[in-house]
């Protein structure tokens, strides 16, 4: 169909294609099986399911990573590139969360609002602008980090601390996905119950983490003259781990709060 006006951004064209495809599939399902309703879970059950999935995923991931580390060798210059990549992915994930929250504010009607009018109950995440990008970006972040570790281990250059930081990165991106799911599932239409305080907390933590990294790397570079090694020392040090843990916990609590306090349209 012709569209009046230009899609000025490539992301718009991509999202529009995604919406058209999703809507077509949704209509197809509705026409083939009008009475079909995806199963709905209670808010607590959904949250429990998600947390279980994240915990199980992290346990499996940690086990796999520990296996990988058994072939690790001493760190060398490749490790600094791995550290830089991991740090970029981590910060990108945090910024992504903030972007989603901003976007959520900019576009008030949720997918649930729209789908409810199309006859589908909220809580059905069959078509969702928030969920699919969240899952995809988390997958990309995890795969990217995993590849860095694997390549490093293949070359025998990955440090144990780096692996643990990757595990923390996994926790952060999973928490980010959880947060987005929480935002998607927030069905409260009369009151804005989403705890915006968490936005401020997450934004502050992300900024603090970035500033901490810049300061550390700047001073360490001045002392050693090697930015790569300075970055590596920050990434594998206590500071980064603490920041990541606090960020992950905050994002998880925000998601839990959002999901558990939401009142659904059709309980």
């Amino acid at each position, binding site marked *: *169909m012709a569209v*009046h006006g230009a899609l000025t951004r490539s992301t718009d064209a991509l999202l529009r294609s995604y919406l058209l495809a999703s809507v077509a599939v949704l209509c197809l399902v*509705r026409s083939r099986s009008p009475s079909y309703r995806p199963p709905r879970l209670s808010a607590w059950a959904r949250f429990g399911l998600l947390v279980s999935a994240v915990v199980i995923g992290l346990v499996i991931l940690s086990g796999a990573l520990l296996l990988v580390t058994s072939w690790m060798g001493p760190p060398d210059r490749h490790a600094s590139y791995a550290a830089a990549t991991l740090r970029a992915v981590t910060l990108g994930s945090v910024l992504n969360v903030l972007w989603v929250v901003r976007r959520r504010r900019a576009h008030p009607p949720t997918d649930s609002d729209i789908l409810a009018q199309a006859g589908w109950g909220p809580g059905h995440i069959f078509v969702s602008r928030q969920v699919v990008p969240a899952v995809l970006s988390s997958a990309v972040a995890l795969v990217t980090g995993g590849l860095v570790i694997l390549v490093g281990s293949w070359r025998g250059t990955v440090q144990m601390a780096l692996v643990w930081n990757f595990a923390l990165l996994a926790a952060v991106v999973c928490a980010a996905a959880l947060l987005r799911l929480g935002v998607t599932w927030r069905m409260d239409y009369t009151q804005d119950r989403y705890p915006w305080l968490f936005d401020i907390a997450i934004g502050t933590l992300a900024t603090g983490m970035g500033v901490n990294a810049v300061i550390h790397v700047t001073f360490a570079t001045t002392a050693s003259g090697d930015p790569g090694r300075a970055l590596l020392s920050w990434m594998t040090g206590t500071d980064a781990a603490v920041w990541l843990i606090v960020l992950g916990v905050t994002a998880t609590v925000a998601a839990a709060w959002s999901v558990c306090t939401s009142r659904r349209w059709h309980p």
Partner: protein
Amino acid sequence: MTTLELENVDFAWSAGAVVISDLSLSVRPGECLHLKGPSGAGKSTTLALAAGLLQPTSGAVTLDGHPANSASARTLRWYMNPAPALYPLLTVGEHLRFYARAHHVGERRALHNLHNLLAGQVDDVLCRDLTSTQAHMVWFTAAISCHGAGLLVLDEPFAAAAPDQTENMISLVQAHVRTGGSVLLSSRVHGNLLSNTRWRTHTLKSPEAP
């Protein structure tokens, strides 16, 4: 053909924050009930109860005997809230087609109704590029045309409309009622136009302070 019943309904957001007290009303097939009352009297809350979005603190809200929040009731009713819920990156035509197909009705009537409400052709305009009035008209068109529900629950449907548009919208609501549909709506604007209709009215009063 759907009957809405509210029996002795109380609703409070929290203890002491009573919004509705002992409300009983019904809307039968072929009938439109216009809720009136001052701001804070509970008009939107009553509509949300009828839409199954809120649960009464006590009392019962049913559609043809089904609890308002049940899956059975959902197929009998369409709720139009004041904020249009439209995908910004779908066109108006795509949106109306989506709603119509999801509810197994033809989209031709929806497009025809929209053309009567809006002077210009907006079928191929992205929803994000609509004015607030246009978006509201699209939202109203979906509510009036894109489903087979017997009961329409309309929260401030005329809020963004000009008088001539309101007359057209009233005609569409009356057409729905003539065919045996039922309507529960609230409106604080265009009182002179609404007074020309023969719709039943129910005035809500603000609950007394404890």
